[in-house]
C-alpha cells in the first residue's frame, strides 16, 4: 500500500507538466500561449496547497509526536524539514513562472510549452530531493533537477550566451554528478546499505578508514558544485549570465535550497559519526570561508547585474554554510529561516531585473540609472532586496545573518562569523552600486517602466515580507523551529 500523499506535491508538478505538453498539441500555432502559463501557475499552486495539506493545515508538524508520513519503505518521508523546503522551492517556482511570463514577452520562444514543462519537471526533482531518505532516491531526484536545468539554461537556441551557459553547465555538472555517484558507491560498499540512517549506524560501528574519508571528500566535492561553493563555483557566473533570467532565478533559489536539503540529510544524518564528522566540518569551514571571500571579492568588478548576482549567490551559499557547521536544531533553524528570507530577496531582485531588461534590453548595471524616476517601485525593490542580501537592518537578511552567525558562534566558529560579517560589508559595496544607480543617478532615458498588476503585487509582497521579517522574524522563526525539530 503506497502512501501517495507523501509525494502528492511532485505528482501535481509532473501531471501539470504533462498536461501542458498535451494542451499545446491541441493549440493552433497562432493562438495565445498565456493559457499554458496559467496552467503551470495553477498546477504549482496546487502543489503548494498539498504541501500545506500534508502539514495538516497548521504550521509544520504542529501535532507533537506525530509520525511523518512516509512511502516506499521510508525512502521518501515528508517530515517537517522536507515540507518547509518544499514550500520554499514551490514559492520560488511560482515567482519563476511569473518572471517567465515577462521574459517571453521579450524573448519569444517557439517552444513555450517545453520550457514550462521542463521547469516543472525540474521543480519536481528539487521537491522530491527534500524528502529523500536514501541515496539512490536522492541521486535520482538531484539528476531530475539538474538535467532539466541544463536544458533550461541553454533554452535560447539562437543566443550564444545561453548556449555557452548550457554547455558549460552540462559538462561540469555531469562531471560533478559522476564524482558524487562515485563517492556514494564507496559508501555503499563500506556500509552495505543505501538508506541514510542505516548508513550512519553502520559507519558508527566501523573504525575510521581512509576509504571513508576519500569517499567523503568525493561527496563533498560533488555536492558543493551544485550549490556553487568555492572552489567549485567557476560555472556559476557564466551560467547565471547566459541562462534565461527566469532560470537564473530558479537556479539561485530552488536549486540551492534542494542542494542544502541533500547536505543536511547526508551529512547531519548519515555522516554525523565521530570518525568522519571532524573531517567534513573542517572541510566545510574552509569552503564556507572561501566562498564568502571569493564570491564577494569577485562580485565587485562586475558590470553585468546577472553576473554580479551569480557571484553574490556564491557568497550567500557561503553564509548559509556557516549555519551548516552548527549541527543541531539551532543551526538548522537558522538555515531554514535564511533560505526563506533569501527566497524573497533574490526572487524580488530577479523579477525587477527581468522587468527592467524587458524595457531597456540591457543587463548592465549602469543602465539601471534613475529608477526612482522611471519606476519607483523597482527602485524600492532593488534597495530592499539587495540590502537584505547584504544583511543590513531592518531587512530580513539582517535577522537571518544574526541567527546564522549566532549559531556558528555558539559552536565556536567565531572567526568564521567575523569573516562573514566583514565580507558582508564588502558585499554592501557592490549592492550599493546598483542602489546608487537606481536611486541616486539621473536617468539617461526617463521613459517610465510599466509593471503589470500581478507583478506589482509580487514585488510589493517581496518588499513587505523582507521588511517585516527584519523587524519581526518570530512567525517564520517559529515555523522553521518546528520544521527543524523534525530531524532531531
Amino acid at each position, binding site marked *: 500500500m503506497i502512501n501517495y500523499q507523501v509525494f502528492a506535491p511532485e505528482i501535481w508538478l509532473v501531471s501539470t507538466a504533462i498536461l501542458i505538453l498535451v494542451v499545446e498539441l491541441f493549440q493552433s500555432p497562432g493562438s495565445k500561449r498565456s493559457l499554458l502559463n496559467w496552467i503551470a501557475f495553477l498546477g504549482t499552486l496546487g502543489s503548494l496547497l498539498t504541501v500545506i495539506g500534508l502539514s495538516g493545515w497548521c504550521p509544520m508538524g504542529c501535532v507533537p509526536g506525530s509520525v511523518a508520513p512516509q512511502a516506499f519503505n521510508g525512502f521518501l518521508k515528508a517530515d517537517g524539514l522536507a515540507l518547509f523546503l518544499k514550500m520554499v522551492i514551490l514559492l520560488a517556482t511560482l515567482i519563476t513562472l511569473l518572471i517567465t511570463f515577462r521574459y517571453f514577452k521579450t524573448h519569444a520562444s517557439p517552444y513555450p510549452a517545453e520550457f514550462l514543462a521542463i521547469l516543472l519537471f525540474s521543480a519536481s526533482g528539487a521537491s522530491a530531493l527534500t524528502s529523500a531518505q536514501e541515496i539512490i532516491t536522492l541521486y535520482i531526484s538531484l539528476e531530475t533537477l539538474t538535467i532539466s536545468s541544463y536544458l533550461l539554461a541553454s533554452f535560447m537556441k539562437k543566443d550564444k550566451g545561453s548556449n555557452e551557459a548550457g554547455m558549460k553547465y552540462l559538462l561540469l555538472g555531469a562531471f560533478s554528478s559522476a564524482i558524487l555517484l562515485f563517492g556514494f558507491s564507496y559508501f555503499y560498499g563500506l556500509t552495505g546499505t543505501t538508506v541514510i540512517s542505516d548508513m550512519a549506524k553502520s559507519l558508527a560501528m566501523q573504525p575510521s578508514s581512509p576509504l571513508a574519508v576519500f569517499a567523503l571528500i568525493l561527496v563533498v566535492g560533488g555536492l558543493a558544485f551544485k550549490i556553487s561553493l568555492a572552489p567549485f563555483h567557476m560555472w556559476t557566473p557564466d551560467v547565471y549570465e547566459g541562462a534565461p533570467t527566469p532560470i537564473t532565478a530558479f537556479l539561485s533559489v530552488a536549486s540551492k535550497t534542494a542542494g542544502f536539503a541533500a547536505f543536511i540529510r547526508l551529512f547531519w544524518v548519515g555522516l554525523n559519526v565521530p570518525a568522519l564528522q571532524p573531517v567534513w566540518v573542517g572541510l566545510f569551514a574552509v569552503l564556507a570561508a572561501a566562498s564568502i571571500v571569493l564570491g564577494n571579492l569577485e562580485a565587485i568588478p562586475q558590470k553585468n547585474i546577472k553576473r554580479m548576482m551569480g557571484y553574490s549567490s556564491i557568497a550567500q551559499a557561503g553564509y548559509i554554510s556557516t549555519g551548516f557547521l552548527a549541527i543541531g536544531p539551532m543551526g538548522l533553524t537558522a538555515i531554514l529561516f535564511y533560505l526563506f528570507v533569501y527566497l524573497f530577496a533574490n526572487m524580488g531582485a530577479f523579477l525587477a531585473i527581468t522587468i527592467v531588461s524587458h524595457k531597456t534590453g540591457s543587463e548592465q548595471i549602469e543602465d539601471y540609472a534613475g529608477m526612482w524616476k522611471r519606476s519607483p517601485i523597482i527602485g524600492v525593490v532593488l534597495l530592499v532586496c539587495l540590502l537584505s542580501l547584504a544583511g543590513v537592518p531592518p531587512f530580513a537578511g539582517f535577522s537571518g545573518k544574526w541567527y546564522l552567525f549566532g549559531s556558528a558562534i555558539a559552536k565556536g566558529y567565531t572567526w568564521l562569523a567575523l569573516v562573514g*560579517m566583514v565580507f558582508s560589508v564588502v558585499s554592501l559595496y557592490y549592492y550599493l552600486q546598483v542602489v546608487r544607480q537606481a536611486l541616486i543617478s539621473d536617468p539617461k532615458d526617463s521613459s517610465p517602466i510599466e509593471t503589470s498588476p500581478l507583478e506589482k503585487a509580487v514585488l510589493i509582497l517581496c518588499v513587505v515580507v523582507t521588511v517585516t521579517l527584519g523587524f*519581526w522574524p518570530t512567525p517564520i*522563526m517559529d515555523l522553521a523551529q518546528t520544521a527543524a525539530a523534525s530531524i532531531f
Partner: protein
Amino acid sequence: MLSVFATILAGFAASFGFFHSAAQGPNALPILTCFIAVPVLAALGIMAAPEKWIRWISLFAASVELGIGVKLFVIFQTAAGGFQFVEEVPWLKSFGINYILGVDGMSALMVFLVAAVYFAGTLISWNISLRVREYYVLFSLLVGGVAGAYESLDLFFFFLFYEFAVLPMYLLVGVWGSGRKEYAAMKLTLMLLAGSAFMLVGFIAMYFTSGVHTFDIRILGDLSKTGFNLEFQKIWFPLLFLGFGVISAVFPFHTWSPDGYGSAPTAASMLHAGVLKSLGGYSIIRVALPAMPDGAKYWLPLLVSLSLINMIYAAIVALKQKDFKYVIAYSSVSHCGAILFGICTLQAAGLNGAIIQTLSHGIVAAMTFALVGLVYGKAHTRELAKLGGLSAVMPVLGGLFVAAAMANVGLPGLSGFVGEFLIFVGAYKSGYHGGFPIFQTLFPIAIMTIVFTAIYYLRLVQMVFYGPLKDPHLKDEVKDGSYIEILPIAFLLAIALWVGLYPKPFVDMSNATIAPLIDRIGGFK
C-alpha cells in the same frame, strides 16, 4: 510665519495632551515607543501626502517629538535613578531577544538631544527643493532609527535601530549632498558598517559566553550574572571599543567623518554629527564598560592615546583646511576625541564630563553645521579663500556663528565649557596604572587642544565674517537669515546657554547613570 508657529504650538499641544498622564496609569501610551513611532509614522504619512503638505507634516511631527523629549526630560525622576518607563515585550524567545525600551539619566539626555536636533533640522531643511518627498521620508526614518538606538535595552534592537539610521544617511548624502557626494556616501556607509561587524560578533559572543542567554543590556552589564572571565574581556573590550569608536570617528577610523560631513546636506550633517556620532561614546558607556570592566581597565590606558590623537591631530588638521565645512567636520572629530578621553579616565567626573560633552557637542555641532549650510546656500561657495567680510551682509548669522564658535571653543557660560572642564577634572583625579600616573601626564597635552580649537575657530570667524567683503556681488544679492533660518539656530543656542549657565539638572541626570556604574566597576586606583 504665523502658520509655522501655529504648527509648532499644535505639535507641542498634541504631545503634552497625549502624554499628560503618561508617567502614570496602566493604560497610558507607551511614551518611548511613541518617540520612535512619531518620525516613522511621519515618514509613512509623507509618502502618501500631497506635495504641499509634506513640510507641514514633518514640522508637526518634529514638534510632537520635541514635546515628548521635553516631557521625558521633565518627568524623569533623577533621584530615583535606574531605568524608567521600561517597556518589555517578548520577541523571539528561542534566541533570547526581547523588545525592551527604557531610559536612564544618560539616555534621557540623549533622547532630549535627538528631539532638539530633529526639530532644528526640520526647520533648516525648509527650503529643500530637490526630490522633497523622498528627502523628508529618509530624514524622518533616520531620526526614528537614532531614537530607537538610544532607547533600546536589548542588543538586537540596539543594533537594528543603529544600522537602520545609517542606511537613510547613505541616500541623504548621495542624493542631496554636494562635492564628491557619492564617494563620501559610500565611504561613510562602509566604514560605519565595518565597525558594526565587530559589534555584532561581539554581541553574539557575549550572548553565548555569559551563559545567561539574553541580549538584555541590563543583565549583560552585571558582571555578577554574566561572569565574563578576564581572557574574554581582554579580547572583546578593545574590539567593541573600536567598533563603537568608529561611530565616534576614533583615530584611525575617523576618515569617513570629514568627507561625509563635507558632502552631506545640512540637516543630515546636523543629525549625524549631533546625534548619530554621539552613539559611539554612549554605547561604550552603556554596553562595553559595565559588561567588561576588567578588560576596560586593562586596555583603556592604551586606548586613551587614540582619543588623544583624535583631539590634537584633528584640531591641527582643522587649522589647515581650505573648505569651511571641513574645518567644522574636523572640529567635530576633535570634540569626539574629548568625549572618548573622558570615558577613558574611568572617573565619575570624567564620565559625566563625557556625557555633558556629548550633549553639548550635539547641540553645538548641529548649530555650527546649520550656519555653514546657510552661508553656503547664500554665498554659493565654501572655499575660505573666497569668503570674507560676510558680517556686512548677514550680521545676524555672523553674530550667531561667533556664539557657536565660542561654544565650540569652550567659553565659560556656554555648554562646551562644562563638559571639557569635567573631563579634565576626571583626568586629573584618575589613578595610577601600573605605577605610572598616565592620565595626569597626558592631560596637559589634552588641554592644548583648547588652544588649537580657539586658534582655528577665531581664524575661521576672522576669515569668513570679518574684514572687507571679498565678493562685492554679494552685497546686493544676499539677505540676512530669514526668521525660519534663525529660529532653529537660536533655539539650539538657547539650549547651549542653558547647559552652560545652569548645568546642574543635566549633570545630575548623567550622574544618575554614572555614579552607580562607577560604584560597581571602580575606577583606576
